């Protein structure tokens, strides 16, 4: 399972970076979304993957017995997903406005503010 997750994360990073390097505005925003997903999955993988061992103290016991899942990475990922959603929604609107105002989706044509 961890190997599968690691491979997925790697593929997502590669695809995200590749799309960021393309000239199209649409591919740019898809690349950003993929990078965000890659980071989220990376947190999940780094926080140990375990199945079927919820961190709940059984009735009668006073402490957790060791193999148990860590709930914190999931809380982190949940926060990151919500933040990422907001930011990516803004990026989509911004790119749409930029496309409407500039009349092109070619990033190489958006160079008037460069020096």
């Amino acid at each position, binding site marked *: 399972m961890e190997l599968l997750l690691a491979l997925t994360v790697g593929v997502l990073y590669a695809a995200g970076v590749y799309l*960021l390097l393309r000239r199209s505005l649409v591919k740019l925003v898809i690349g950003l979304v993929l990078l965000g997903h890659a980071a989220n999955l990376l947190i999940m993988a780094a926080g140990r993957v375990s199945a079927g061992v919820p961190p709940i103290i059984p009735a009668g016991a006073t402490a957790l017995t060791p193999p148990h899942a860590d709930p914190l990475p999931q809380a982190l990922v949940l926060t990151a997903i919500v933040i990422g959603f907001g930011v990516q929604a803004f990026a989509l609107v911004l790119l749409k406005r*930029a496309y409407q105002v500039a009349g092109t989706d070619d990033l190489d044509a958006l160079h*008037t*503010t460069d*020096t």
Partner: protein
Amino acid sequence: MLLVLPILVPFFCAATSLLAWRSLTAQRLCGVAGAVGLLASGVALFAAVQRAGILVVQVGNWPAPFGITLVADVLSAVMVLLTGVIAVAVAVFALGSLDGRRERFGYHALVQVLLMGVCGAFLTGDLFNLYVWFEVMLIASFALLALGGERAQLEGAVKYVTLNLVSSAVFLAAAGITYGVTGTLNFADLAHRLAAAPHPGVGLTLAMLLLVAFGIKAAIFPLFFWLPASYHTPPVAVTTLFSGLLTKVGVYALIRVFTLVVPLTAVTQPLLLTVAGLTMVTGVLGAIAQHEMRRLLAFHVVSQIGYLLMGLGLASPLGLAGAVYFMVHVTLAKSALFLVSGIVQRLRGSFELDRLGGLWRDHPYVSLLFLVPALALAGIPPLSGFWAKLLLLQAGLAAAHWWVTATALAVSLLTLFSMTKIWAAAFWAAAPPGVPGAALTRRQWLLLGGPAAGLGLLTVLMGVAADPAIGLAQRAAAQLLDPSAYVAAVLGRP
């Protein structure tokens, strides 16, 4: 309570100005009140830290490594105070310079959200919480940058948003790996955990990830290209706020993690110093090549970041003290210069050096407002920049890092050259024919000139009262270099 105020005051004012969406007067009032309130809470926090040492709040009473911790040591308190000063200056300047359309679309609320994010980033003691504050700050800055919807603004915003989102993704990955390796995200708890981590390479990996993530936000070489492409596009009030605060948050985060979480090693120290030198050089060379006031100043922001990085890279008490003193100095001086560029634009209708001129004859006071921070930035004694550079050069010589010290000296000379370029073209040269000469009302002079004069005065004060200011910077540096007091204050045990 004092620790939460710099976050709560802007939050409250942002919410109020959103509720008062229809009333421009109420929103303006909220904007100014929020800035003044932030300055007041910054002063109170600063006084409390001076009196009682490191302040700590465990949010929700969750004990230290488990909950979110807010910490204020000397560096954090100074940065929050500085944020308050810049916020007030920009709030007043915005009243006199901003067009009503931008204000009606939520300018004041966005500025307050930005201030909240900046103060949160300065005060948090938790790596993931820092990520959250960064995002709060970023989303507000995205909207502020694009607010107005001019073509140049949108083009600049595309680059700014893209690179900052990449930086956030890298930061998030670093936070996830940190938790996976150490099982904690609390700065104080991390201080001794990462050194004892089972895989020695992990520390270096994290250091590089964090360097890239914060380096993009701080605009270090070679990750700074978004800054000169975007900072000159929004109105001057927004540019001043960004150049004063946003890159400094990146540098603050670098200082925090490279003193506390991943201390400098034989690999990272030379790397930081090399990057520092290259940042100084590329920034100032870019500035010299420009013919537009705001673009020139934007490149200077990059150049000055190099000096801050040099102080961090030297990792000596004197070097870090120099970095802290320099950070305050450059924030004040650079903000004053940006505000003056706004006044010049008001008077002459342009930022292009070719189309300016004759300002010394027509407006000697405006020229003075430019001259003082410009000389301070170039490092002319007895202004603040002189002491800042003196500290860094002394630290560089003491640590025998000759190359970066020589670079800092040479770049200082080039800084003076580029400042004289603006001075000669815009102020001293005769005005080219057909230059419009707008007149400002008394109210506009007060609202536009007042903040610039106040910030200029502060750079003079920092230079004249250099001894207490440097003493303060040295106390901040001592706390950074010996984190035991920080760790003890947060975790409640030595």
